[in-house]
């Protein structure tokens, strides 16, 4: 708390010489927009970089969906753009796998981790807990620039002669460890590993900062249990990241050693293209343990911030407190703990000891309990509310629907008996795209629509927003719902042409339908991107300090807050953030002292 006061004193004292010394009002273009240390600007940098990556990753999926839907058609335009990768207008297998790998990597790490946590943790933590900025604005800036560096390296790997990494986003060795195994396993994979290492540095710098800020820099009266659920969610997210990303780093570094220094961490008994390799004694499965020790918490790193924002947005727009705040918090905590104890459910069929497998079945299905609590609490939050369907609220409702659908299919996959059949089929693709891909995107969109007025002082265009929501919502179900049937039929994932198979070749019409819907949904996302950039400059201006009638602290700042967020003193907090519809009042901001006659909750 004392640090809070210090920051307050250092930054906030208005119009004194002291203030001038800190120079917050005399920033050059570079210090204000590029190497900025303002958490809001850094958040926007993460968001815009994330949007760029999302377009790239989404475009990749359109390209490989073309191949999946029309494996025997040629698209000469592809050859114009991609040359040898699309010889004769057909996507070549190496290119296909490069696209799939990059799509996964980019969306999981660059968009839904950096773009989602990076954006909203940065923008919301200081604003919602009442701080001038992050604990270390400099580390925060470094976090973005390491992410940028990782982006540059990853992007450059797409342009090397032998193509980007193509071993799948999980990058399992020995495939990813052997340069002889294919073109994508050459320099592309080294660049992938270097990029991931830089990304992990970025993630750690960011995460440590979020934790430090939340623990130390809350304003007066902001006890931990008075924090909005968004903050709790990004807090747990940061902890997950700090504890699990280093494990991936070690996995990646060992892989780099195996690739370039002749070590045998993951390699043993290998004969490739008739060449006998000397490596003995390594374990290919070791990498999978290291990878999924991050990889599974990663799913929740992606999902938790979306859950937090959805909780906040549903509450604000139902004009009703979030139902069961403590249960929501407890379930976030339970999910964060269990996230570390379920990684081997990705490895049921790797030859894992069956007894160990059964332990992971139990722990995996346990996660369904806190998840169910969250769903029921969201439903009860809507119940007897007075719901405003702002675009953010619609995306939040869509999130809940998708989370239910995708969560339930997780009960199939988490059960090792069923997983034997469904493992690595299109069922898995449908499951994780709904629950962690699209659902988290919905959380992110909800966040953008809800906090855009705070970020830019303008509103997004509503008509475009509604079209964006409905096309995406309907499209997401059209794409992924029927895909489960392909999985039930056993169609393996990452098959770019099934015409050579007797038993997998009966889904041509479905594949075409999915491809067409994918293109439409992608176009709807471009509409959002247009809306986003258009509205930054031309959107309707925000005239009210608190446009949504929300209780949280960010709406007590000026419409366009400067560096330091509040012009005067940081407001003091007197209550939890969910006093909506209490005692006949529509909402009671956190800054309002508790009245003498106020009812208790």
């Amino acid at each position, binding site marked *: 708390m004392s640090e809070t006061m210090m920051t307050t004193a250092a930054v906030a004292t208005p119009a004194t010489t002291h203030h001038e010394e800190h120079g917050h009002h005399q920033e050059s273009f570079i210090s204000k927009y590029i190497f900025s240390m303002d958490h809001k600007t850094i958040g926007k940098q993460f968001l815009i970089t994330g949007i760029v990556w999302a377009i790239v990753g989404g475009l990749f999926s359109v390209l490989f969906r073309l191949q999946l839907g029309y494996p025997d058609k040629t698209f000469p335009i592809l050859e114009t753009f991609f040359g040898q990768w699309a010889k004769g207008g057909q996507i070549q297998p190496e290119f296909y796998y490069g696209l799939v790998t990059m799509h996964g990597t980019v969306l999981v790490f660059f968009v839904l981790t950096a773009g989602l946590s990076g954006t909203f943790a940065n923008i919301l933590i200081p604003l919602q807990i009442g701080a001038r900025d992050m604990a270390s604005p400099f580390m925060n800036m470094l976090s973005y620039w390491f992410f940028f560096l990782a982006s540059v390296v990853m992007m450059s790997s797409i342009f090397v002669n032998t193509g980007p990494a193509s071993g799948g986003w999980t990058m399992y060795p020995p495939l990813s460890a052997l340069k002889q195994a294919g073109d994508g396993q050459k320099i592309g994979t080294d660049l992938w590993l270097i990029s991931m290492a830089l990304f992990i540095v970025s993630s750690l710098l960011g995460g440590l900062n979020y934790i430090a800020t939340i623990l130390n820099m809350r304003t007066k009266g902001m006890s931990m249990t008075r924090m909005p659920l968004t903050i709790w969610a990004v807090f747990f997210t940061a902890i997950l990241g700090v504890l699990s990303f280093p494990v991936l780093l070690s996995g990646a570094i060992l892989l780099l050693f195996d690739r370039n220094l002749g070590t045998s961490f993951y390699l043993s008994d290998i004969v490739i293209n008739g060449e006998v390799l000397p490596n003995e004694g390594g374990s290919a499965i070791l990498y999978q343990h290291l990878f999924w020790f991050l990889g599974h918490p990663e799913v929740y790193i992606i999902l938790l911030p979306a859950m937090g924002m959805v909780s906040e947005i549903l509450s604000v727009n139902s004009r009703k407190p979030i139902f069961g705040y403590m249960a929501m918090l407890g379930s976030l905590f339970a999910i964060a703990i269990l996230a570390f104890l379920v990684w081997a459910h990705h490895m049921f069929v790797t030859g894992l000891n069956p007894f160990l497998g059964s332990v992971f079945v139990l722990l995996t299905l346990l996660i369904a309990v806190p998840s169910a609590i969250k769903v029921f609490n*969201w*439903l009860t939050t809507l119940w007897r509310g007075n719901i405003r369907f702002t675009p953010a609220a619609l995306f939040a409702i869509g999130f809940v629907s998708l989370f239910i659908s995708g969560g339930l299919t997780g009960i199939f996959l988490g*059960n090792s*008996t069923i997983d034997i*059949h469904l493992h690595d089929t299109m069922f898995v693709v449908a499951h994780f795209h709904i629950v962690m891909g699209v659902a988290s995107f919905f959380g992110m969109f909800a966040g953008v629509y809800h906090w855009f007025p705070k970020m830019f002082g303008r509103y997004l265009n509503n008509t475009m927003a509604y079209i964006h929501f409905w096309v995406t919502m309907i499209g997401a179900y059209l794409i992924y719902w029927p895909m489960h049937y392909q999985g039930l039929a056993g169609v393996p994932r990452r098959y770019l042409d099934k015409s050579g198979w007797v038993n997998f070749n009966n889904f041509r019409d479905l594949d075409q339908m999915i491809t067409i819907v994918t293109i439409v949904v992608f*176009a709807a996302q471009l509409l959002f991107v247009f809306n986003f950039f258009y509205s930054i400059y031309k959107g309707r201006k925000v005239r009210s300090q608190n446009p949504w009638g929300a209780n949280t602290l960010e709406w007590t700042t000026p419409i366009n807050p400067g560096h330091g967020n509040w012009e005067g003193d940081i407001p003091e907090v007197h209550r939890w953030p969910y006093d909506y519809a209490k005692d006949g009042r529509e909402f009671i901001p956190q800054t309002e002292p508790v009245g003498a006659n106020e009812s208790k909750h």
Partner: protein
Amino acid sequence: MQTFFILAILVLVFVIILQISKASEYVSQIKGYENARKQSNRINGFMLLGFLIFGLIGVYLCNEWLKDRILGEPASDHGELVDRMLYVTLAVTSIVFVCTQVALFWFAYKYQESDNRKAYYYPHNNRLELIWTVIPAIVLSVLVGFGIFYWFKITGPAPKDAMVVEVVGKQFGWEFRYPGADGMLGKKYFKKVDAVNGNPAGQLWEDPANHDDVFVEQEMHLVVGKPVQLVIGAKDVIHDVGLVHFRMKMDAVPGTPTTMWFTPKFTTKEMKEKTGNKDFVYELSCDQMCGKGHWSMRGTIVVETQEEFDAWIASKKPQYLVANPDKDPAAKKDSASAALPMATAVAKN
């Protein structure tokens, strides 16, 4: 040309949407933002209800459309367990799915903003929360219990009388080794792999168990009703032995042998009749990303009667004799025609 048309239409739709969006912004400016907001609130409320109704109809239609394309009856004893578990889970999750989705969209529609309603201050209810913690926990325990019970049955030790087949994946194909009359697979070492000189599996010829091992590629033969244990390995990268009809799957990992076992229930011939597809064949798919040919890494399996199997295996020359023609008794008699009666004699033993 077609591509350009589609692109042109997309661009056109885009421009139209932008214009409508701008226009509606002006309209709401004229009508007043509050009125415009209330109107769009009603529209979206109806759309949410419509999404629920058409969505549930869509779920039904989708099932009608695709249900015949998922695999029919499982073709192995383990497959029956997998399918039973799957359908139990499907039943449980379907109930939860319908209830929660109906509640979600119905609440959203019913409690949409209205001037006549005040939101109800309802921050928590410990009893309710306890109920919906305990009930999912119980249901999940049941699913976990069944799942683990079946899982141990499937992954338990293979029966003693099971036949053994070695399956090895490589970029991009499958190799199989049968133990021959002694029922034992001979030792192998990866540094001995030498496909050019007739030793693609890296067998150690000094091990006598190797002398009758039969090596084949791409097509595996199994006996109907007889348990089979697959000993699985890989030469280069991780592959996965995926057997959709038997509902079995196991990774093939270089350096770490894995196993699985099951009992095929139907011969290929019977499956042709069951599926009504005269081209039916059991397929072995690689289910673990293994490089640019992953999608085409296909093997086939013939399930046949014991007699047919015996005749087939007898027609194959042990790899030892292929690699060491000087040791081949048939070749020594310098009569190729002698090979056939010899082999049948072995099979009868």
